[in-house]
């Protein structure tokens, strides 16, 4: 029963296990999903663990139980045109003569509006309640559903129903593909680990205490050790040069600062497009600090470079490549990057471009990617980069 639903969840990256499914069945047999809204809530409880999966869950649910295909993008996002849900709708709408003219001649904004209108209409229809029964002949509800009080719509007001809630897309900003917000980024970064003994000697070492006490002829001798704590040094280097980087530069900086309490030390530097023999300690890039001095940090420092790695090839590869007049440098930037990488093996490059864009990025992206492991500046990318660093640390 509902196997298609389970497979669809897994296909959308929600890794449900057999125990989850058994719990789900157990709940159904106890009548926990008496109506569609309860089914929605209960299935979500059983299968979804992370807020980042909420949006995917809502899409799978509405597709499986209501036949409404919601694309994984927000309303107003132009990436809509790349989704299969949009293509499917477009094909059908054209065939059913629902469009005034050939899509090629229509204003994209108008197409987008029409698409979302259709989705909303579908949701509207379904939140009425009765439509749910017998869609396509098979009842989506557990065998207990009917006897337990039929299909009531949750709560009094219509706008609390599952379909409506899904329409709100309340969780899209938490989705793994979405760009970072301060909340979700902090959670991902907090996984960074580096344990070492620190703090006061306040943990009683029982084995050692007993040994010492015995050799002491029974006179108690207490032995204390220091606890193992997480102490991490982080250097953050942000490209705040191009306008494409502006929103990310600020956000990244704020974020790392927020988690400063967890870190032993945090240093933030700025650069324009790529790193030459100086980096800057202020956003305006007026206060320079020599790369030489940055390289004096301990080599277990975690280094995060944030930038789109996109620039003219000569900026990265040729001597005197710096485009800022007066800042020219005899050494090509790529050598400085190499130095950073060699000094700080725990280093990653975070790129605000999407994975596909990185894959097909310009020459400079490829060159830098060969040097630093590069991750997209999305929740998933950040998560992967942290995982990479932790794995390296063992």
């Amino acid at each position, binding site marked *: 029963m509902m196997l298609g639903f389970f497979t669809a969840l897994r296909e959308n990256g929600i890794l449900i296990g057999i125990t989850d499914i058994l719990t789900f069945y157990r709940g159904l047999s106890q009548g926990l999903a008496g109506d569609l809204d309860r089914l929605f809530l209960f299935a979500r409880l059983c299968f979804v663990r992370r807020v980042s999966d*909420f949006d995917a869950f809502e899409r799978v649910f509405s597709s499986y139980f209501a036949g409404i295909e919601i694309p994984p993008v927000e309303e107003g996002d132009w990436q809509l045109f790349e989704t299969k849900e949009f293509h499917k709708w477009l094909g059908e709408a054209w065939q059913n003569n629902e469009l005034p003219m050939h899509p090629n001649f229509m204003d994209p904004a108008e197409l987008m509006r029409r698409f979302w209108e259709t989705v909303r209409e579908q949701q509207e229809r379904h939140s009425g309640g009765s439509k749910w029964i017998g869609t396509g002949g098979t009842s989506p509800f557990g065998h207990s559903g009917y006897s337990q009080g039929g299909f009531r719509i949750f709560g009094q007001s219509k706008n609390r129903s599952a379909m409506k809630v899904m329409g709100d897309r309340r969780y899209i900003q938490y989705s793994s593909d979405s760009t970072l917000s301060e909340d979700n980024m*902090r959670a991902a970064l907090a996984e960074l680990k580096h344990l070492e003994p620190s703090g006061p000697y306040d943990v*009683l070492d029982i084995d050692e205490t007993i040994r010492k006490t015995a050799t002491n002829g029974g006179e108690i001798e207490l032995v204390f050790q220091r606890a193992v704590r997480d102490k991490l040094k982080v250097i953050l280097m942000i490209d705040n040069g191009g306008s494409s980087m502006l929103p990310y530069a600020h956000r990244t900086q704020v974020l790392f600062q927020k988690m400063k309490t967890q870190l032993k030390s945090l240093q933030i530097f700025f650069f324009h497009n790529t790193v030459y023999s100086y980096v800057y300690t202020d956003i305006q890039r007026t206060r320079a600090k020599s790369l030489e001095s940055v390289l004096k940090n301990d080599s277990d420092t975690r280094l995060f470079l944030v930038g789109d790695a996109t620039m003219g090839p000569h900026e990265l590869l040729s001597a005197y490549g710096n485009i800022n007049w007066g800042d020219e440098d005899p050494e090509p930037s790529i050598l400085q990057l190499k130095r950073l990488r060699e000094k700080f093996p725990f280093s990653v490059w975070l790129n605000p471009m999407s994975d596909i864009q990185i894959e097909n990025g310009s020459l400079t992206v490829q060159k830098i990617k060969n040097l630093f492991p590069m991750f997209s500046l999305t929740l998933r990318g950040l998560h992967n980069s942290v995982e990479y660093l932790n794995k390296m640390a063992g």
Partner: protein
Amino acid sequence: MKTEDLQFKGSEKYYLSDELSEIVNMAILLQRPLLLTGEPGTGKTQLAFEIARTQNLQMEILRAKSTFKGEEAAYVQDTVLRLNDARFGPGESKRDVNNFFDYIMWGPVGRAFRSEKKTLLLLDEIDKTESDVQDNLLDILEDNEFTVRETNTVIKAIHPPVIIITSNAKRELSDPFLRRCFCHHIAFPDPDEMRSIIALHYPDSNPELVNAVIKIFYELRERRFEKAPATSELLQWLQACEKADVLPQDANNIPFAGILLKKTQDLLNYRNKKT
């Protein structure tokens, strides 16, 4: 156990959305730990207290700290006392140095499991702990039991407690931990829900004032402050405005800004933006 016995509804001091009350009831019925996430001020911890109060459950609370190792949730052995007794004798007390259990102090989990009465076990702010701490809690969540390592004794819950866990999502929880819970993210209340919350706390407030403060409150939340104002700040602010008998009108010029914005930097940013 029948569903009706457990119907948990909001109470006079706690606003509960239909969604959340359903979820609580589902978790209780299937005896699964319920993990609540959400930003501060969404009433996660409060919910646990309300469940305990309305269901008449005794409560055991574990407040997590970052230095917390997990074992002490179940029990700690008072090694120093035992060493002392071994050396100087137990004195007047009835403790027997050879009996390990005479030197055990039960933690909240230990007490909840050994209680003769059904309890509610609250693991508060679990995200403050390291992931190995969460691993230590797995058996507790899964089978309602833990092992006393020193004697290999299994302590099983007499009555499986209702387990509520809260997390501010400061860091991600480990997968095995999440797998054993029902997880729910409490979204920040929308303006209408906020109105209901205010009505519960201050039923006699002037509706005009309530509308004004709610409007400005959500406007300020939109601005990217380091610490966005939350429900408790709103309630305090409302009270302050009421006492002083002022009606805030302009989001750029509010009285008692310090109540809503707690961080100095936020306050400075707010004042600068105004001018």
